[in-house]
């Protein structure tokens, strides 16, 4: 069994308007030292998944089913208290906007020390030393001084470094980064991505990077999982996704990805329409109302939910189009367009 394994995970929220199926039957696995990128639009269920792994939906209104195995332990059925003990220690998370994700009333040091001392029975002094070390390690200059600063006294990039330091303070084996660079400007983004890559190597942790930005996962990930409407629509290695993407949605994502190797004047190709409702999921393939190739499925897309099937070597796709047709479309219609445009 892999270090982290999700089996048919479902996270549903009952609301006044109906049941919101944020995550609907998600499965994947991840080994130590590997990086998985989860990509999707808002509301595709990627963040809900990450919070689900950390057990942060427990005790709330969410209905969770399926299995989450972490290092041989099942987490869905485990007690809240037990999962709490794992949070921060065995699995940690880096959040998107460090300004709002850090408590404004406590110093950065205090927040790291708190995280460290929850899981390690050490004196405040030792914990403080550790916090300074961690801040130094994530590249914050003058950590002895900065440890007593408040989050609002940091720049955006420094804050994200501090956030990473906090997440890594207990040496976690699973690290989830939720849009780690979205709130940062481009140059800082690159630095943070470099830092994360370095640190992952040092800590030998399993890393999940959640983003809507394929560019980020391109830099970091070994494997990529594309989510749409709470489901995985395509899964494969980084190479699979970038070189041989087979799902129309993935094509759309690639089309709307700004790339450094393109001319700045080039037009991006956005996906038409807006993300699906998670309550009244479109019949059949959830993507069909936005899919440019829907008519080539002979109506199946409207009525039949496609299955996630392997095309080759672990590359999974959820689409009614035949494999040949997908390849043909990619090679003849999409790829040239992406390169030419």
């Amino acid at each position, binding site marked *: 069994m892999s270090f982290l394994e999700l089996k048919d995970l479902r996270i549903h929220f009952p609301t006044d308007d109906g049941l919101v199926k944020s995550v609907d039957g998600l499965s994947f696995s991840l080994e130590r030292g590997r990086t998985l990128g989860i990509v999707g639009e808002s509301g595709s269920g990627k963040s809900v998944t990450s919070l689900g792994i950390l057990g942060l939906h427990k005790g709330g209104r969410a209905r969770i089913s399926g299995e989450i195995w972490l290092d041989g332990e099942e987490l869905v059925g485990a007690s809240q208290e037990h999962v709490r003990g794992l949070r921060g220690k065995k699995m940690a998370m880096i959040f998107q*906007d460090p300004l709002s*994700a850090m408590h*404004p*009333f406590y110093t950065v040091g205090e927040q790291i020390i708190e995280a460290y001392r929850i899981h390690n029975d050490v004196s405040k002094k030792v914990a403080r030393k550790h916090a300074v070390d961690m801040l130094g390690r994530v590249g914050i200059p003058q950590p002895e001084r900065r440890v007593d600063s408040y989050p609002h006294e940091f720049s955006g990039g420094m804050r994200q470094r501090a956030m990473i330091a906090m997440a890594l303070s207990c040496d976690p084996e699973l690290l989830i980064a939720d849009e780690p660079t979205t709130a940062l400007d481009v140059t800082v983004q690159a630095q943070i991505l470099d830092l994360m890559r370095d640190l992952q190597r040092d800590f030998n942790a399993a890393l999940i990077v959640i983003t809507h930005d394929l560019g980020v996962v391109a830099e970091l990930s070994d494997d990529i999982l594309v989510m749409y409407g709470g489901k995985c629509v395509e899964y494969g290695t980084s190479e699979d996704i970038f070189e041989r993407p087979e799902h129309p949605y993935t094509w759309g994502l690639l089309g709307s990805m700004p790339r450094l190797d393109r001319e700045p004047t080039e037009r991006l190709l956005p996906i038409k329409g807006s993300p699906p409702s998670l309550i009244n999921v479109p019949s059949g393939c959830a993507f069909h109302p936005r899919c440019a190739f829907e008519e080539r499925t002979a109506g199946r897309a409207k009525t039949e939910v496609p299955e996630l099937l392997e095309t080759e070597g672990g590359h999974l796709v959820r689409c009614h189009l035949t494999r040949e047709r997908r390849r043909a479309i990619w090679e003849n219609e999409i790829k040239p367009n992406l390169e030419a445009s």
Partner: protein
Amino acid sequence: MVTYIIRRLIWAVVMLTIVSIITFGIFFLVPRLAGATSESLAARYVGRTASAEQVKIAADKLGFNDPLIVQYGRFAKGIVAGADYDYGPGVEHCPAPCFGYSFLTRLPVWPDLMDRLPVTLSLAIGAAVIWVIAGVATGVLSALRRGSLFDRAAMGVALAGVSLPIFFTGIVSLVVFSYGTPFRITAPGGSFTPFDENPAMWAYNLILPWITLAFLYAAGYARLTRAGMLETMNEDYIRTARAKGLSERRVVVKHGLRGALTPILTIFGLDLGLLLGGAVLTESTYSLPGMGKYAIDAITNQDLPKVMGVTLVAAFFVVFANLIVDLLYAVVDPRVRLG
């Protein structure tokens, strides 16, 4: 920080001056608009049987014929430097802060006010302790169990609480717990025992007004706290705290409550400041001899020096409370810079 405090103190003085000018102006002008003359005002000082001539002399002596500005100047000078007052057998110096002498009792206002202050202080602070504890606790619990039976019940009661006029709850509480002999658990006010004299009697006399007043405020605070907690508990930093593996209790108390309580601090400061200037309705419902009752009595008797005195003291508390709140805010929230 120090310059900020000094600046704020100066502004506080300016504000009190403005308040005193407006108050003086209104109480000077309105009776005159109502047809009062300086003689009829002076008549209040010389008794029912004075002759027209005596009244005229008194009006002159009291300076009621001087322009408004001169009269105000005299009043302001009294507060700052004291004033001399002819009380019959001799002239007496009324030391600063001199708010003048009551029309009716002919006693200086300031000692009177200082006499009433402990009552209002006891009432306000006692009630504040109750309402903060009860209101915040209820609000937090409600927020944490949002939608639960407890939440619905508590918020229902709280909404009822803010919708009930205190003079109604006050009377009902008096009738049930004080007048009604079977449940008589407390005195109906009117009597006040200073804390240092007999703490038990002090509490006994105040328990009913405390609870009634606290109920009203606790209701509001429960609603505020709940709203604040709901908002705070949705903050990203709460999720971060949870992700760190903190116990839910610690998340709520150390991270949630800390954030939610900060805005409540402001409101608390203002409420307490307003109350210290006289819980008018509570004091008159329970006949507590505090500042509010003093104000009402002074107003009913149109005893201008008393009204001026109590208005200014009340304004002082509001201004002072504002200052304290702003300073405290800077202590509580590191993002706030004074300056």
